[in-house]
């Protein structure tokens, strides 16, 4: 390790006394994690089987720097630190002590091991549990779809566990803060009833959703010091990074462990806390200062240009309507403001600029991010169609989207249905046509229609291309038809062998056929990533249902198909995205969570109110179901406004922190609904423009 490459403050952190607790904070890209990984190497030199290292991050994507560090040549061989999250720790703990804790915790099925539910399977069971309530007219007036309804009930349960109050307190807390229509109070109550029924179901069947998992872990580990000591005994060193994005339950745990683990490095990102809707609690993280003997604050930001820094500072002041000191003329170089009339103009302008950057300025695509509050299909389609035509690789991320909505999902499942006629799920001509357009490269809508019309038979069976008349084959082209036959041949072979679960089937189909040259998914990174998520989702679902399937004779593949049709949500926030050299197209908050800086950013339609507002969740509330909330207060518009303003400020600061060179801002006069728009972000930019008028003239 070459210690010279670090500045003096970093060196101080790296070389601090081993058996002490350090608190390190600083803005994004101020070298905190670099110092931490260097210290990790330093600790690893001291490590042995009795003195192991535990690294905690709020989500797996945030541990990548540590993962990479382990692979570096100068990392001491033989040392394998445990890198995990609160969820991972709790699962490990429960598995280890299941026999001890299952009965005391109220589990009734006496299973040999616990079954952990992921988001999909939890929603699946929640739906089952809620059906009798829905039949009684529960949530009649809640105008959201069922998938979101269930995920919000689960969210209230998670919040209770992560913050540490009984489930029964959820409705009273929400009710006390509610300031709107009285009917919502009834829904809070109904939501709680469903949550309690779901909890009962879990206990009866020895299954654990995330909330139960955390609750058991918290109760056992915090209340029982001998269990805690036993579980954490191997760890002598602990590094917890991005503690501002983590939940109070983890902070509580770290407080308890401060006596047991001699060496802790706790790292906090200033101005962050983007996962607040998932329970992130920066003020709670601040409590950890008290257990640290040394506090370090890094201030210098690497890789952020001076103009960008000036622009960020001025913009955050404008958003919060704070009086500003002189704005540096540098700020004017950090951004370009584009006024356009309509969406297509915006798309063209962005893609032309991306094209220029990639092909003329030789900027790697991975250094460019196109960001908007939401990423609906039409926007994604327009952007990706243009980028494709310019041969620019891209990767879109839409975590809260259901897998059922993706065209690639439907495409592969058409062939899954064909391969499994016993499911008796019909294939329609339109969906076959769509599948062909996705899976056969260059397959246009006319040839896809001809191929679909001529190969799909009345019994929903697919015939080979080679069986259709010569003239039609010529029209479709042999190149395309033969590829279709390759898929059918592969399925014919598959049907002659032992059938495998759906996720395995799709993995094989993708790996052996669809990802190969000559097929649509070859080099289609965006769809390949989606398909990987689909396969992972089905696998998780199957693993959860394995034991239950045996008892209830359920075919988990078919069940997944049905559940998918009902709008299953992916377990979005817990999955990693690959780090590829592609243009990122993502909702702004999703991009922030990836924590990856780029050189250029494009902000779409800054007049869209979506930049400012929080996603409405009628059954839960990120600020009220929070440890910092005073339960005697009501949540008023002033607080809502302030929270949204702060969130916008945090978003703008976070995005500009992750933008190293230039940001392009787009104002669209008429949105897709033909409406003139206005948003606090746009107002902030306007104020910035006003304030810089003098600066411009001067410059």
């Amino acid at each position, binding site marked *: 390790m070459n210690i010279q490459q670090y500045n003096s403050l970093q060196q101080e952190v790296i070389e601090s006394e081993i058996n002490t607790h350090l608190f390190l904070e600083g803005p994004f890209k101020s070298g905190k994690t670099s110092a931490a990984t260097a210290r990790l190497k330093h600790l690893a030199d001291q490590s042995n089987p009795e003195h192991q290292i535990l690294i905690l991050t709020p989500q797996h994507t945030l541990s990548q720097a540590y993962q990479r560090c382990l692979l570096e040549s100068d990392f001491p061989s033989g040392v394998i630190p445990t890198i995990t999250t609160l969820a991972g720790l709790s699962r490990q703990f429960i598995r280890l002590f299941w026999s001890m804790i299952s009965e005391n915790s109220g589990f009734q099925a006496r299973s040999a091991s616990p079954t952990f539910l992921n988001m999909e399977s939890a929603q699946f069971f929640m739906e089952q549990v809620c059906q009798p309530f829905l039949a009684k007219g529960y949530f009649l007036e809640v105008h959201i779809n069922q998938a979101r309804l269930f995920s919000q009930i689960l969210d209230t349960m998670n919040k209770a566990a992560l913050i540490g109050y009984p489930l029964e307190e959820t409705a009273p807390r929400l009710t006390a803060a509610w300031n709107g*229509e009285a009917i919502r109070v009834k829904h809070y109550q109904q939501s709680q009833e469903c949550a309690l029924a779901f909890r009962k179901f879990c206990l009866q069947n020895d299954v654990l959703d995330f909330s139960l998992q955390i609750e058991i872990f918290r109760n056992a580990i915090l209340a029982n010091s001998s269990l805690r000591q036993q579980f954490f005994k191997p760890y002598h060193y602990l590094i917890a990074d991005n503690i501002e994005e983590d939940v109070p339950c983890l902070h509580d745990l770290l407080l308890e462990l401060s006596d047991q683990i001699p060496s802790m490095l706790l790292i906090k990102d200033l101005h962050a806390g983007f996962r607040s809707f998932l329970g992130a609690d920066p003020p709670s993280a601040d409590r950890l200062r008290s257990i640290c003997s040394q506090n370090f604050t890094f201030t210098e930001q690497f890789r952020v240009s001076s103009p960008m820094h000036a622009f960020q500072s001025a913009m955050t002041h404008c958003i919060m309507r704070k009086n500003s000191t002189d704005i540096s003329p540098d700020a004017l170089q950090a951004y370009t403001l584009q006024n356009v009339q309509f969406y297509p103009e915006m798309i063209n302008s962005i893609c032309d600029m991306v094209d220029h950057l990639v092909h003329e300025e030789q900027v790697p695509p991975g250094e460019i991010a196109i960001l908007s509050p939401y990423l609906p299909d039409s926007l994604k389609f327009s952007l990706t169609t243009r980028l494709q*035509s310019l041969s620019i690789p891209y990767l879109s991320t839409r975590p809260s989207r259901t897998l059922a909505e993706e065209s690639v999902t439907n495409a592969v499942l058409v062939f899954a249905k064909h391969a499994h006629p016993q499911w008796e799920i019909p294939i329609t001509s339109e969906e076959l046509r769509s599948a062909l*357009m996705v899976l056969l490269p260059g397959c246009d809508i*006319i040839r896809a229609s001809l191929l679909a019309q001529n190969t799909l038979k009345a019994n929903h069976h697919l015939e080979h291309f080679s069986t259709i008349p010569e003239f039609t084959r010529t029209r479709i082209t042999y190149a395309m038809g033969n590829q279709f036959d390759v898929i059918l041949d592969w399925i014919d072979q598959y049907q002659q062998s032992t059938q495998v679960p759906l996720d395995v089937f799709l993995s094989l189909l993708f790996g052996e056929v669809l990802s190969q040259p000559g097929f649509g998914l070859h080099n289609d990174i965006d769809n390949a990533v989606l398909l990987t998520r689909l396969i992972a989702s089905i696998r998780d679902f199957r693993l959860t249902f394995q034991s239950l399937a045996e008892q209830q004779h359920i075919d988990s593949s078919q069940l997944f198909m049905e559940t998918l049709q009902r709008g299953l949500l992916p377990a979005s926030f817990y999955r990693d995205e690959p780090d590829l050299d592609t243009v990122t197209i993502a909702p702004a908050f999703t991009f922030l969570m990836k924590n990856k800086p780029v050189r250029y950013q494009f902000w779409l339609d800054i007049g869209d109110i979506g930049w400012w507002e929080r996603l409405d969740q009628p059954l839960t509330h990120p600020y009220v179901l929070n440890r910092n909330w005073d339960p005697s207060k009501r949540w008023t518009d*002033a607080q809502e406004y302030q929270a949204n303003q702060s969130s916008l400020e945090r978003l703008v600061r976070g995005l500009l922190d992750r933008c190293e060179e230039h940001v392009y801002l787009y104002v669209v006069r008429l949105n897709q609904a033909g409406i003139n728009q*206005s948003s606090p972000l746009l107002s902030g930019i306007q104020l910035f423009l006003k304030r810089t008028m003098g600066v411009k003239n001067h410059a």
Partner: protein
Amino acid sequence: MPDFIPRPAQAHILKYDHGKMGIAAVPGSGKTHTLSYLAATLIASDKVRDGQEVLIVTLVNSAVQNFSKRVGGFVHELGLIENIGYRVRTLHGLAHDIVRERPDLAGLENNFQILDERASSDILDQIVSTWMRNHQDFLVTYTHPESQEAMQYLSSKWKMTLLSMAASFIHQAKDMELTPEMVNTSMANNHSEHELLRFGTEIYRDYQNALRYQAAIDFEDLIRLAYKTLQMDADYLQRLQERWSFILEDEAQDSSALQEKILGLLCGEHGNWVRVGDPNQAIYETFTTADPKYLLQFLQRKDVQAFDLPNSGRSTHSIMALANHLIKWNGTQPSPALTYSLVPPLIEPTPADDPQPNPPDAPEKIFLFTEKLSAEKEEDMVVQSVTRWIRENPQQTVAILVTRNDKGASLVQKLKNKKVPTVELLQTSFSTRTTAKKLADLLDYFADPTSSKKLSAAFESLYKDTFEEPEQKKTMHTFCDDLKKQSLLEEFLFPSNGNLINQTELNSEDELMAEVFRKFTEFLSVNQRAALLPIQQLILTLSSQLFTDAHELALAYKLAEVLEREAKANPTSGLKDFAAELDKVYHNRLRITGFSEEELEFDPDQHKGEVVVATIHKAKGLEWDRVYIVSANNYDFPCNQPYDQYISEKYFIRDHLNLEAEMLAHLKALNQYQRVEEGEATLQARKAYSAERIRLFYVGITRARKELVITWNEGKFNNCVMAIPFVELTTFWEDEHASHA
């Protein structure tokens, strides 16, 4: 500085800088212009601070566009950036903004959906049908004894009546902020279990349940929820009050109680609110809960400065004299209950040297045709007259104004038979239907992309407006015919060797055609894969590239929502089904709320040499050189006389009862512990309807610039007489002429 020289009355209004002001404006007095200029000057002054806006509220979408353009133009001329510092909205648009910013307060999600009129009609239809099956006794009770033998025949008529009643009940109840449960409780408390009230409440309850089940709200809910949201959260209200530091309300004569309450809250006790309207042009009470009394009461308030805008350069002196006489006569008309229906100010000509002087007077161009005609003959006569006139005056504008759509449709058909260029301004606007047609034809092609016939239809639909000259139209027609004959479309549009076939082969002589078709094939090539998207997103993708007009974009967005709901209700629906839905809009079988009520930005001067057929309601705000008003009889323009007939009093219902009015009277009386005598509400409704019809007549007359023709007919059953206001105008005109002579 802007090129606007205000008249003295306008200049007075432009001095406004704070507080409450009410303005009574006559037709053609330039109130939109004045209000737009006022908005621009407020924005330019330091009265509107950073982050604040002037909120302009108007009645219909066409006015939103009009206002936005005018204010933007003035703001620009004042050296400021357009689109900043003001917001123009209809009441629905405003309610949407209020709820959209804090949907949680109304119990809604961020992207909540509003049910369109068709979907809510479907729900009502289903509920009313079920109700009818179970309440035959109700129908018998109210059916005229002489009609009771024909109950089966009357079934569809009853259904129409009950549907209209149900919609009115729901509308009224929501305007009164009553939920079905509240109505039920009041009924129980008052021991008022009247069957009409029970009917309304049961339908209302089932309707709301159906909305909840579909996770949707309707347009009335939107306004109710906006009001409730403002009441519920004082902080939010305060924030909006701060944001909208000035409220300018146009067409205030058509304000409803809820509109007044919402704007009143947004304004606050000491806020700034300018209300402009013409109480004589209040013509929406029958369809809505609007009432000119709100504006009139506002004008009387002590804290309100009241002004008139009496000058109008629109019409000749003769036409103004007729309109003014109607106002003066109305104060002494035979039915005392109607004397309030038209009120001063009278219309005054523009002052000397005004940039918009009145047209030179031409009393000989006033034709008040008193001869009794059958409905058929009246139509024939008018068609003949207008045909001749348009031939002689190809550079002038003309409109035939009707009170009902069916009458308009009949006239349109007759004009078309005579090959007279005709423009309809009836139920569903032409532009709405054209937008829907373009999307329908494209979807139809995507549903069946191997069909050259559908390809040709889509091409024609998208690009026919590019070819306006007769010769060009012929070329287009030939080209489309040739296109229909093409086989092997795949090689034509998506050639396997990557080279597009030389499309000019179809019509190699026409360069424009070749260029347009190249654009079309490029469009298809880029967007064919959008067919993979969910229907709503497919429509948005296509429309964002096809349309650049705010109205078309807004409509396409609305259509996308309609189709998305269709997709949710029928998950097996495919592109063909969606195309069929859009086709219904094109063929006027499906109305799209928010778009069917008005033609957006219709400019009569763009239709010189064509006959515009419009309802008087749709003609509001417009003007033509010559105007025909037909059916000036006592059915279309009753005057509260014992012998008058009323559209709301169905012949098959006993005792000439207006059941809708009777039912609403019971609803309104609920909280006032009043007894409702049967028949009383019917009589009251006659008065309200007659009053509105006099105003409608006034609106019709004031659409004319230079020439006016009024005719009447004896009605379907040959038992109608001339409308009293028409009789009075005829007498007045004859006297005037006699005195002139």
